[in-house]
């Protein structure tokens, strides 16, 4: 199970690396998988012998991947991207304040506000991960 979950994480990281834009679903899925595999690593490390063995090597390899690829490169990239997206969405919505609007325009705009709220919630979620990393260090 650890092998398959690590592989799934590896695939997600490779996919994220090759993308410029991620959906909220992809972001949340990636973070959940990172947290899932990190928990598995912590739990299995406690159970594994301290002597070198294939499982311990695999755990160390996975932790290295999370630390060097995800925490150091992908996570900051995602956080920067979300912050810029929020700034951009906010600016666009503010510039659309003026003037009379029809019922249809108001209700269509409301969907953009809802997208902004979802993106802001995702940013909070991503920032919570960052808080977790800083506590682990």
């Amino acid at each position, binding site marked *: 199970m650890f092998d398959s979950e690590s592989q799934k994480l590896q695939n997600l990281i490779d996919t994220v690396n090759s993308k410029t834009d991620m959906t909220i679903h992809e972001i949340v899925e990636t973070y959940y998988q990172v947290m899932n595999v990190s928990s598995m690593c912590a739990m299995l490390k406690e159970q594994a012998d301290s002597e070198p063995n294939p499982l311990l090597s695999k755990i160390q390899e996975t932790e290295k991947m999370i630390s060097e690829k995800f925490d150091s490169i992908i996570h900051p990239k995602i956080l920067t991207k979300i912050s810029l997206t929020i700034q951009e969405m906010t600016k666009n919505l503010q510039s659309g304040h003026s003037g009379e609007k029809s*019922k249809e325009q108001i209700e269509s705009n409301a969907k953009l506000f809802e997208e902004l709220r979802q993106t*802001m919630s995702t940013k909070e979620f991503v920032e919570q991960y960052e808080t977790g990393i800083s506590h682990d260090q």
Partner: protein
Amino acid sequence: MISDIAKNLVELKQEFVRVYDGNSQIQELIPKSTSDLFPIEASHLDLLHEFATKNPIYYNSFEKKIGSIDCIVYEGDINKYWLNSIQHGSSKAPFSPTWIMSGYIGAMFAKELGYSEVIDIGSGDGRIAYCAKILDLESYSIEIDDMLVDLQNLLTSTLNFHPYCADAIAFDYSSLNLLRPIFFIGGLAQMGGTFLATGVLDKINSISDLKQNSGWVFAGTLSQKYVPDPKNEAGWGTLIEKNNLKSIHNVSLPAAWTFHESDDVQYIFAESN
């Protein structure tokens, strides 16, 4: 009688939710005329409708019979006010209004309990203060967000409910010469309300004699989405105990955000022990 009106409003809301097929961000209703279920003075109903028709958050209205009651449905959008409040970081809780009818019923309870002044804290568009004024209570509306206070000033030509653009926890309440006030605290306990209430309680407690004469109304929720307070009272139990208050009444009433929720807002009325 007031409790019956409150119960009838909750039931009317449930029927409204069932039949409403619009797409607005917020929606609420006000009965068109007095009835057995809503024995409200016609002049008061006119003023409640006037608040909605003059208020720029509502962009559409239409007549609809809901259950046995002829109502006017008001459809609105508060997104730009939400955006403004998060931009300035001034507000502890984003603007999310209670229903106008709920504000009116809350003010009716305040009057029945013997209070003479209503202070609407974190008042949003000032609807609770406005409703209190309809009932001949003196009222004051304290709101930190300037865009919302500008909106309130559009509504004071009908009834002056005294809007103040101020931080409620820094406001000088002694300047109002309050005698028997009741403070409606905007915001759920879990959404910044506790911080706001604590700040205002500290200010009031520092004014001699006012603590014993003051009442408090806290907006709470029983929703399982929020961590419950160990002392209950819809999230306010710990604050009530810590400030030596006692809960004297509670009533469930609809708000904009409870439209899609099974539980409405629990308004907890409290006073000094």
